[in-house]
């Protein structure tokens, strides 16, 4: 006799973390999705040889995916809703320009240096906002990129409204693609690991119940600062990369787009999964690219998509898909 059984049942019963795999079906069940994503992301640039216009879009998609990861981590694992993704992008971009154009560092040094120093600077600048809760933190982070723009304009520093031009571009198109794709995958799977490590649990504890974390003798401010560092690290990399991609760092790096589109991606993809942030970007950014012809009207289409998602599938695609995926069934002999 045969009956149906959920595939995850057998897998789940065994000790968490260390899977003893019993069949090829279970192996596929566990490693299938990440394998699909990794292989997919890696062959994408080759596939798109046939659609040159879309090749550039891959880079933008990955950049937004990284910013979305940084938002998802802060919002859904630490409880800090950061509306200032553009701030990290701007800091990373400008720093990379300074390292590359003013200090003549080669591109393979300016990007990592901008990423690290940008994360340090962002963390220090956000320190005063860390004790703020909920909407207050959100407002402060929303103001930061606006403030940075005005400061650069008013003081006419770092190229003023023209920005800093003449950054070295990456050696060739393939380096350009694979650098951002691989870094995105590292961030994605690195973060997915990190949030389940002991320190990751502490950081998640801050979101669940910060009082209990304090009562456990751990400084909540320190944990939040570390989380902001991690998050801005990703954002600053994205900024440094874009600056080199466009060979230009200007005030548009602080534009609202870099704050809002990643958030929309997380909403669509599903918050708190990290994978959802990437998935959302892969859906939303190409759509936004298609809608370019519509000019400002695309904002309307955007809003409709977003509202539809929040109203009808507020959990996001990823959460939905994961639930369905875990419900896959197979036939077993009884």
């Amino acid at each position, binding site marked *: 006799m045969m009956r149906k059984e959920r595939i995850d049942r057998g897998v789940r019963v065994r000790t968490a973390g260390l899977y003893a795999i019993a069949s090829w079906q279970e192996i596929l069940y566990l490693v299938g999705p990440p394998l699909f994503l990794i292989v997919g992301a890696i062959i994408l640039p080759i596939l798109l040889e046939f659609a040159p216009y879309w090749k550039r879009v891959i880079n933008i998609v990955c950049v937004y995916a990284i910013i979305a990861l940084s938002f998802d981590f802060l919002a859904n694992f630490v409880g800090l809703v950061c509306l200032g993704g553009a701030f990290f992008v701007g800091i990373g971009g400008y720093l990379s320009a300074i390292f590359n154009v003013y200090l003549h560092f080669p591109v393979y040094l300016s990007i990592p240096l901008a990423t690290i120093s940008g994360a340090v600077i962002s963390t220090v600048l956000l320190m005063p906002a860390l004790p703020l809760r909920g909407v207050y933190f959100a407002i402060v982070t929303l103001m930061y990129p606006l403030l940075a723009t005005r400061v650069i304009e008013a003081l006419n520093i770092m190229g003023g409204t023209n920005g800093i031009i003449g950054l070295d571009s990456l050696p060739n198109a393939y380096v350009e693609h694979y650098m951002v794709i691989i870094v995105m995958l590292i961030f994605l799977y690195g973060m997915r690991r990190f949030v389940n490590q002991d320190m990751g649990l*502490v950081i998640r504890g801050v979101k669940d119940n910060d009082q209990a974390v304090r009562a456990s003798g751990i400084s909540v401010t320190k944990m939040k600062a570390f989380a902001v560092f991690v998050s801005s690290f990703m954002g600053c990399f994205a900024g440094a990369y874009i600056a080199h991609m466009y060979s230009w760092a200007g005030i548009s790096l602080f534009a609202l787009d870099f704050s809002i589109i990643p958030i929309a991606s997380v909403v669509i993809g599903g918050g708190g999964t990290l994978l959802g942030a990437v998935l959302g970007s892969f859906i939303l950014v190409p759509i936004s690219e298609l809608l370019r012809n519509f000019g400002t009207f695309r904002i309307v289409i955007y809003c409709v998509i977003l509202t539809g998602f929040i109203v009808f599938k507020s959990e996001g695609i990823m959460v939905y898909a994961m639930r369905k995926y875990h419900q896959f069934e197979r036939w077993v002999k009884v």
Partner: protein
Amino acid sequence: MSDDTILSVQGISKTFGGLKALMDVSFDIRRGEVYGIIGPNGSGKTTLINCITGFIKPGGGKVIFKGKDITRWAPHKIAHIGISRTFQIMRPYYSLPAYKNLIIPLWSPRAKTVGGWRGGGRHGDRDTVAVDILEEIGFERDSRVPYKLASTLPTGYQKRLELARCMAMRPEIIFCDEVFSGLSMSEIAGMLPLIEKMKEEGITLIMVEHRLRELFRVADRVMALNFGEKIAEGLSSVVIENKKVKEAYLGKEEV
């Protein structure tokens, strides 16, 4: 203040707006004793714990722990030197399984440095230590209970989890804010040996309770608060006969 005083609270006051929640409350806790704090609803018991453990800043007064003035210290520093507490409004880390709730205190600098509790160590170790602590606190190791999501645990286990979270810190003092409330008689009976065991391990316990009968079975001394004022202190049998205490509780609770 005698030699074996571990914690000395001197003239703590706190006002919320116009409300005097605590007025000049003083008491000394001896090392290793179980000290009960009783008082009607709103008499300031939780506020007192909050003032001592740093979660709110007292308006006046001093808290001395082992001769060191810790008044107005940040809560995590107070926890770090060995003063732990439970919360009256329990809120475990809901999204984590019960044993993972203990990873957080076990990860803390205190658990790592104070040692003795095999606190530090690799990832795998910490998980085992967490289950060990849960077992000591009354979770059946071989059952599935320690691995269940904290949000799905029954109240009795959530209370135990609160205590386990304190125990994981290897504290010297634990403030328990109404750990018996909401539990059935038999559940409380199950908790009493636990209290005794903590006492044997040399932990000083300060227990805020409404369940007087059960409290008096474990408490060495008791203090009564009413409208933010200390109205009596001493052996439980003496305190309960105190006229002011009887008045404060009159009609509220059968004793």
